[in-house]
C-alpha cells in the first residue's frame, strides 16, 4: 500500500513531464500532419538553457531564493526555447511545405541530430549536474514497515506548474481568437486562409507554443533529476511521442492523459517488476492499445459529413 501510493506520486510527476512534451508533438501533428522528431531535442535544449541560467542566477549573481530563481529561469527558458522552435520551423520545415510528405520528416531528423550534436560540442558530452536544491519533503504517512510515503517539494512544484500551465494553455486554445485560428488551421487550412487567417503565422505560433511547453518540461526535468546530458532528448522524446499516440494524436487532453499513463506504467513496472524492462512495458501497452483502439484513447475517428 505504501509503495503503491509512493509510486503513484512518482508516476504522476514523471507523467506530467511527458504530458507537457507530448502536447508539442500532438499540436504540430494536428496542424501540419508531421511528426516533429526534433521536439525531444528541443526539450533537452531547454533543460540546458534552464541549467545555464540557473547557475548564472545562483552562483554569479548570488541569488538566494531558489523559488524566485526557478521562476525567472522558467520564463527565460520558455522565451529562448520558443525562439528556437520558431527558427527551426522557419529554417527547416516551412521551405519544405508542399513538398512530398517525407521531406519535412527527414528534415526533422536532421534538426534532431543537429541539436544534440550542437549541445554536445557547446556544452561537452558529460552529464551536467545542478547544485542540489529543494530537498525538502513532506511525509504523508508512515507504513507499518517503517516505510515513509513522501511527497517532495519538487514533485509539488512539478505537478502544480503543469496543472496551472495546462489550464492557461487550454484557455488560450479554446477561448481566444488566436486559439480559434489555430484550431481552424488544424481542420482546414485553405478555408482558414479564405477567412483572412495568416496560416503561416498560425503554424509558427503552434511551434512556439509547443516549444514553450517543452521548456516547462525541460526545466521541471532538470529540477527533478538534477542532471542533464546532450542525449537526454531522445528517450523522453520518444516516450512523449508514444504518449501522444496513445492518447490519440491530435488531441490535447489525450496527450496529457497519454503522458500520465506512460509515466505511471513506467514507475509501477519499475517498482513491482524490473526496472530494466520499464521501457518495454510502456511500449507494449502502446502496441496493445493501438491494436484495439487504432486512433488512441481520446483520438477521434474521422467521421465528417460531406
Amino acid at each position, binding site marked *: 500500500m505504501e509503495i503503491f501510493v509512493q509510486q503513484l506520486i512518482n508516476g504522476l510527476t514523471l507523467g506530467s513531464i511527458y504530458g507537457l512534451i507530448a502536447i508539442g508533438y500532438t499540436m504540430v501533428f494536428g496542424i501540419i500532419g508531421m511528426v516533429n522528431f526534433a521536439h525531444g531535442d528541443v526539450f533537452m535544449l531547454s533543460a540546458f538553457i534552464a541549467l545555464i541560467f540557473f547557475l548564472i542566477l545562483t552562483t554569479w549573481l548570488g541569488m538566494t531564493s531558489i523559488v524566485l530563481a526557478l521562476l525567472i529561469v522558467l520564463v527565460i527558458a520558455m522565451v529562448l526555447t520558443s525562439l528556437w522552435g520558431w527558427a527551426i520551423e522557419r529554417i527547416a520545415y516551412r521551405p519544405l511545405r508542399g513538398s512530398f510528405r517525407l521531406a519535412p520528416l527527414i528534415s526533422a531528423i536532421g534538426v534532431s541530430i543537429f541539436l544534440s550534436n550542437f549541445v554536445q560540442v557547446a556544452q561537452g558530452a558529460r552529464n551536467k549536474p545542478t547544485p542540489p536544491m529543494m530537498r525538502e519533503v513532506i511525509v504523508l504517512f508512515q507504513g507499518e514497515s517503517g516505510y515513509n510515503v513522501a511527497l517532495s517539494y519538487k514533485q509539488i512544484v512539478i505537478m502544480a506548474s503543469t496543472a496551472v500551465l495546462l489550464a492557461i494553455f487550454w484557455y488560450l486554445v479554446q477561448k481566444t481568437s488566436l486559439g480559434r485560428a489555430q484550431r481552424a488551421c488544424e*481542420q482546414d487550412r485553405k478555408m482558414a486562409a*479564405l*477567412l*483572412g487567417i495568416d496560416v503561416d503565422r498560425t503554424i509558427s505560433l503552434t511551434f512556439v507554443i509547443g516549444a514553450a511547453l517543452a521548456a516547462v518540461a525541460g526545466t521541471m526535468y532538470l529540477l527533478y533529476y538534477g542532471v542533464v546530458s546532450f542525449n537526454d532528448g531522445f528517450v523522453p522524446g520518444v516516450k512523449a511521442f508514444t504518449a501522444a499516440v496513445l492518447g490519440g494524436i491530435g488531441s490535447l487532453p489525450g496527450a496529457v492523459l497519454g503522458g500520465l499513463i506512460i509515466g505511471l506504467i513506467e514507475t509501477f513496472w519499475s517498482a513491482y517488476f524490473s526496472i530494466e524492462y520499464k521501457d518495454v512495458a510502456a511500449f507494449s501497452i502502446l502496441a496493445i492499445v493501438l491494436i484495439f483502439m487504432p486512433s488512441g484513447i481520446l483520438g477521434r475517428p474521422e467521421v465528417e*459529413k*460531406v
Partner: protein
Amino acid sequence: MSTAGIPLSVDAGVQPGPARKPLLSVRGVKTFYGNIIALKGVDLDVHEGEIVTLIGANGAGKSTLMMTIFGDPRAREGTITFAGRDITRMPTHQIAQLSIAQSPEGRRIFGRMSVFENLQMGASINKMAHFNEDLERVCTLFPRLKERLQQRGGTLSGGEQQMLAIARALMSRPKLLLLDEPSLGLAPLIVKQIFTIIKELNEKDGMTVFLVEQNAYHALRLAHRGYVMVTGNITMSGSGKELLENPQVRAAYLEGGHH
C-alpha cells in the same frame, strides 16, 4: 423579342457595360494544375452593386476561377484587380482582408467547431468589431442556425451547412461576396430561400455578389449579368434575361425543364 437581335459578345473581351470602374476585374487569367490548363484566359468584370453569375457544366473551371481570385491556385498569367488594387500575387489571407468573402465549393465548414465558432471565424478580418450585431443579422436571415448555435458544424445537415457557409461569409461584411454553387444538393424549397436571401442582400444592403451556379435557370433569373464558361473559356456573356432567352444557352443548360 427575337433572339437573333440580342447583342451577345462571343469570347467576350471588356464589357461595354456602365462607365464606372469594376469592383472586380479579371483579365486574361490562365490557371494550371500542374501542366493541365484549367482556365485558358478568362476576362470578366463585376461592378459594384451587381449580381453577376457564372454558369457552366461540371468541370468547366468555375470553381477554379473562384479560387484563383483568392490566389489559390495562383493565376500563371493575366491580372486580377479588386477595388483598383492588383491582387494577382497577393497572399490568400490578405486578399480576404480586403473584404472579399467566399462561400466555397463543398462548403468547408469547420466540422469540429460549433456553429457559433464558425461564425466567429467568419468575423476574423474585422477583429469581431460588430460581432453581436452581425450575429443577430445572420440569425434573422437563417433562423435554423440560431437554434443550432452550440451544435458542432459537422453534425448539421447539408442544407444547414450551406446556410452556415453563407452566413460565415456574411460575418465579415464583405464588399464582394463569392458564392460557389449555393444550391448544390439542396431541396428545391431551400434553394428558393437561399436565392431570395441573395436577392435581399443585394437590394437592401447593396452587396455585390458573384455567383457560380450549375442551376442556370435560377441563377440567370436572379443575376443582372451572366457569363457562360465552357472548358476554361468564357464563351458568352450578357444580361441575365438575354442569356436566359438565348437558344444556345437554353439547349446546353436549360433543356429538360428548369428545376
